[in-house]
């Protein structure tokens, strides 16, 4: 049985008269000792999912409004605050993005570590202190006995994050959630901290959920990846499978926005046009439709479910044999995935639902030419002899930033 099973999790934020649909039915599983990456851009719901799991959503605005989070047979969503507190820190630990603000500035490191240990185990202060020194050594803090009495501001960023990792692993939790653990750190330090995280979780057989917007981070660290967009999981696969052959247009787009050193010819970075959707409205259809170059008419109205690649009898949700699944009506072909754009003759991304066009264009029937004009993605001439053709960047016009709602 999986260590963690999230089933159809729904999280909404409600404030004076407005609702934000942060997470819209997310499901995944995690086996003991496994490392899973949650990847997506800001606002896709990856952090909210983990906060919801721990019961740490900002009250009173954030609420779990559907689904279950099964941890070890218990539904964390229905657990009492007392029981949740028992699990936090001891069974499930979490570290956050900014180590400077995540540590209490007026308490010493010793105080902050000892209180964690003593909150869950009956230990004397001395024993807790010894354990703290052990932990600091484990994370690579030199001369830990001296540093115990220090305050957070006396450490560098990387060291602080190591301290946070030490605190998180203090009680040997079975699951650790790391929410953008290296985003606030210098690049050189990032690698060190990630390596530390990886080594420690493997050594202690702790499952790890690594949340990040950076594909580079998950590439070396995780066994499986969930790609999230606008509160949905749009693709899930083992890391190897995902990078080798992405299926969802968003994933394809993500992979093509990263500059790669191993390309022979300097290729244009293909940005994903458009901006994330306004999550204040109830999601209708596929969330990625407005920005998708492969979209069909049905994409505007039906949100595709996660379907396995190829014909599969049973779906495996964890481990190295996990089924590669994606949520798309019209997935890119392998060539298109490699190229980063549709390659089918005469294919035009479906226009938004018809009525809108008529009002604006003013014609009774929409001529094919007019439909072409409103394509979000201008189709380049299929390149001859493999020479890349520059896509016309003028496709989307001005995006009104101000009119796009962003989820909190």
């Amino acid at each position, binding site marked *: 049985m999986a260590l963690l099973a999230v089933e159809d999790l729904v999280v909404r934020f409600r404030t004076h008269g407005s609702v934000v649909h942060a997470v819209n039915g997310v499901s995944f599983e995690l086996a003991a000792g496994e490392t899973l990456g949650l990847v997506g851009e800001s606002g896709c719901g990856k952090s909210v999912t983990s906060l919801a799991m721990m019961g740490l959503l900002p009250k009173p605005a954030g609420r779990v409004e559907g689904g279950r989070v099964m941890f070890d047979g218990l539904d964390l969503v229905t657990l009492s605050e007392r029981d949740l*507190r028992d699990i936090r*820190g001891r069974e499930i630990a979490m570290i956050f993005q900014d180590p400077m*603000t*995540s540590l209490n500035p*007026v308490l010493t490191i010793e105080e902050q570590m000892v*209180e964690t240990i003593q*909150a*869950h185990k009956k230990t004397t202060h001395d024993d807790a202190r010894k354990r703290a020194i052990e932990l600091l050594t484990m994370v690579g803090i030199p001369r830990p006995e001296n540093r115990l009495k220090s305050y957070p501001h006396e450490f560098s960023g990387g060291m602080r994050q190591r301290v*946070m990792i030490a605190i998180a692993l203090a009680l040997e939790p079975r699951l650790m959630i790391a929410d953008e653990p290296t985003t606030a750190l210098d690049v050189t330090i990032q690698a060190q901290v990630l390596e530390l995280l990886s080594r420690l979780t493997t050594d202690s057989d702790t499952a790890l959920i690594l949340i990040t917007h950076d594909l580079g981070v998950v590439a070396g660290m995780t066994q499986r990846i969930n790609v999230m967009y606008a509160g949905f999981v749009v693709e899930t696969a083992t890391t190897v499978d995902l990078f080798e052959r992405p299926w969802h247009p968003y994933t394809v787009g993500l992979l093509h926005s990263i500059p790669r050193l191993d390309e022979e010819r300097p290729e244009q970075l293909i940005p994903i046009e458009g901006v994330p959707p306004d999550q204040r409205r109830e999601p209708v259809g596929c969330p990625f439709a407005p920005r998708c170059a492969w979209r069909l008419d049905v994409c505007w109205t039906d949100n595709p479910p996660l379907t396995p690649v190829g014909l599969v009898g049973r779906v495996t949700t964890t481990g190295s044999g996990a089924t590669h699944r994606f949520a798309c009506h019209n997935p890119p072909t392998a060539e298109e995935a490699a190229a980063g754009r549709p390659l089918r003759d005469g294919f035009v991304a479906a226009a938004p639902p018809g009525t809108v066009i008529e009002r604006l264009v003013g014609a009774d029937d929409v001529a094919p030419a007019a439909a072409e004009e409103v394509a979000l993605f201008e189709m380049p001439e299929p390149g001859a002899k493999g020479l890349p053709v520059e896509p016309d960047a003028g496709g989307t016009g001005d995006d009104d930033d101000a009119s796009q709602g962003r989820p909190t």
Partner: protein
Amino acid sequence: MLKYVVRRLIAAIPVLFGLSIVVFAFVHLLPGDPVAALLGQHATPDLTRQIREQMGLDKPIYEQYLIYLGQLARLDLGKSVINNRPVIEELARRFPATIELSAGALLVAIGLGIPLGRLAASYAQRWPDAVVTVISLLGISIPIFVLGYTLQFLFGATLQWLPASGRINPRLNIEAVTGFMLVDTLLARRVDAFFDALRSLILPSIALGSIPLAIITRITRAAVLDVSNEDYVRTARAKGLTERRVSDRHIMRNAWLPVVTVIGLQVGGLLAGAVITETVFSWSGVGSYIVNAIQDHDYLVVQSTILVFATIFLIVNLLVDITYAFLNPRIRYS
């Protein structure tokens, strides 16, 4: 931290000088003849000449100022025009009363203000918060003398639960050893008198403490709300600590910092408010000393006492800054 303290001390020096200049101006640079103004109706030819000499009014301004500074250094704050007693003596005699009153007011302000502020923060936007906000609003909007007389009327005259005025029932005849009524009654081993003095302290403390109470409540509420949104509070919860612990150790320890600063500023308000409170409650402290002097046109007393109050305020602020530096590890260990 030592550097910080020294820097603050040095910064205070020009302000002290500035104060002395201001009060000097108040006394020596009056529109019109200063001596006539100072003496008012008490002017006699002898007294006039004496004062003129004493103040060195025939000398150039800067010499007058230097003489003045010299006097201040010797703690010579002048003499009362009425009874020719040195101001400093009378101040020393009356100060304990004002200190007792201020202490009582501070107790009310902090003892009620901080819990109320925390309460309001934890029930933010709900009805307890609204109630506390209303109390706070009333505290800063109702003048001390209005509140004072209302309390006197209600609890002193009508309900007769508490003494309406004075520091102690005069018939109890306690000898003034330290000047602190609460101490002197105990020294005289009169427990009944002690409680009488304590009861006399209640109404004036509430009146004087009303404004600091209102402000401390507001600041505490704001500080707790701000700190509650900080990342480290989320970390504390993620570690599985009880809400109690999170509140006391993580939220309050940090929320204290701005509150301490505000308390220091409120002491100034207490000094100023004492003037009015002592008048309303017939409290024989420095505040009523100023008011009597105003009515007697004993202006030198007024200005000298203001100088003393301001100096005390400066010192208190300095102490508060040092306390803040001590409480904030980022400054303490820099």
